């Protein structure tokens, strides 16, 4: 029994978006929890729960995101035939980048990162932007298949129907720059980030 790539892609995208909603809400909740005074509701137990839920949600999403991207590639039949589809590729890459950075930060620094206000703000902002990028990629999928999206009801809409197309050489130059910069960051910068006790 086989299912089409498009159906499989939809299922994977739903898992990714569902997990990311949980991760984003909990990450933002962790930041807010550290800003507002401790109370009966805002206690340490809630903080620990939200931190673990955000980590679990983002890790799950990060596992399924490459599967969703690959199945989407297969469903697109190797074509980037419209600006919408081209932007779907780009927003998926942005989502992958933001979620990876979120998970790297949380795993390297541990739950203690929420105690540092600038880091907590950065982490929740990363989750928020990552979710926005993921939602955009998913909404473009809705536009392509059904001609409508939940984002249609919003008063704003990130660019999706026009694309800044890079020539092949420019895209691969950018990719080389990305590989080089991440290799340098992983070699020299990442070891400096250790668990915050």
């Amino acid at each position: 029994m086989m299912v089409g790539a498009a159906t499989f892609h939809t299922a994977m995208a739903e898992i990714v978006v569902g997990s990311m909603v949980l991760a984003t809400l909990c990450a933002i909740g962790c930041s807010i929890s550290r800003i507002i005074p401790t109370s009966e509701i805002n206690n340490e137990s809630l903080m620990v729960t939200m931190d673990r839920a955000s980590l679990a949600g983002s890790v799950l999403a990060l596992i399924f995101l490459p599967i969703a991207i690959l199945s989407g590639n297969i469903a697109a039949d190797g074509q980037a035939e419209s600006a919408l589809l081209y932007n779907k590729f780009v927003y998926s890459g942005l989502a992958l980048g933001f979620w990876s950075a979120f998970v790297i930060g949380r795993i390297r620094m541990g739950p203690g990162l929420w105690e540092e206000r600038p880091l907590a703000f950065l982490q929740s902002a990363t989750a928020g932007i990552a979710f926005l990028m993921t939602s955009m990629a998913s909404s473009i999928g809705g536009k392509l298949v059904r001609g409508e999206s939940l984002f249609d009801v919003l008063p704003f809409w990130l660019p999706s129907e026009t694309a800044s197309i890079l020539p092949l050489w420019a895209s691969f130059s950018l990719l080389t720059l990305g590989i080089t910069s991440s290799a340098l960051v992983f070699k020299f910068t990442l070891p400096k980030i250790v668990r915050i006790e």
Partner: protein
Amino acid sequence: MNRSAIVFLICITLILAPGSSVANPGGNGDGDRDYSCGGSCHGDPALSMPSDATIEITTGNEAFSGQAVAIHVTIEDISTPSNIIGIFILGSLNGNSDTPEDHGWHLIQDPNGGSSNYIETKAPSSGSVTVTWVLLSPANSGSHSLYAEIHHGSYAGDKAYSGVSEKFEVIVQDVPEGLPGLANDWIAPSFRVSGDSSLLSISTRNSTDISVEWMLDGEWNPTSVESVCIEETEDFCNDWEVSIPATMGEANILYRVTTYNGTFAVEQPWLKMGTAPPPFEGDVWSARAHSFAFALLIISFLVTLQARLYPSIERDILDQTQIVASSEMIRSEENPGWLWNPESQEWIEDPEYNGGDE
């Protein structure tokens, strides 16, 4: 209000929120479809209601077998919240094999410029709309039936409203010997790319000459253009090229072909040609590389930012006992109370030193 009540209210709101957007309020696209979408939920009496619109079919010209005929469908008194109305032209109401093609007709052009028997269009605020299909009549003469069906949304949001016209009889007459017309296998082009002024090919039959006139959609004064015969046979020329001006933006151009056999002329129905945007020139490998480049650059940038915001002071005030315990420090007789760290090449205070007292 307690927390349970708030959670309950949020859940109920979320469940009821999509109630006003059931089915496909954005439409389902043009296509070849049978009556009531071949037994879909729109045909289910429990899920549909009769539309209050009136539907009428008229023909634009006499129908000769194998010749083009314009079929006008006029819908009046329609009210739909989505402003989208789906219109079918059908050869029967069986629920299968209902398209005009299944009954000997051949679709040359639908009202949206394609060649489908089902189209979606905007319902104007006046509640009345007329759309035109151009079809080649069946090859066998006699009486042939056509129906028009519509479906649209409702203000209640939970029912599909549908309506079907009365049976419309088209009397197809035997074609007179040598009647000039459009070729059976010719399909009028739906679109031209914006700015494209290439010649338009027209295939005819039994024609010695053609004349073509065009006008922009909404105008009333057509302009004639010259036609060039491409391949002339013994008595006729059935392959023509005409130069119709390029269009830009969302302009639609209407054109009409008049076919001649000697002095005998047949005026064909008006045909519509839309303007398509230039083809997208993006490359899939460029998109993939672009995507992964952004992913890696974002990771690099954010990890650098995390390192920048990392509380560096924490490391300076760390208790160095663990470092000392886990390193191979060299205790020196000459510097009591200090340990030499060969890795960092520096002296570190010995936490175990108690001032020489045993």
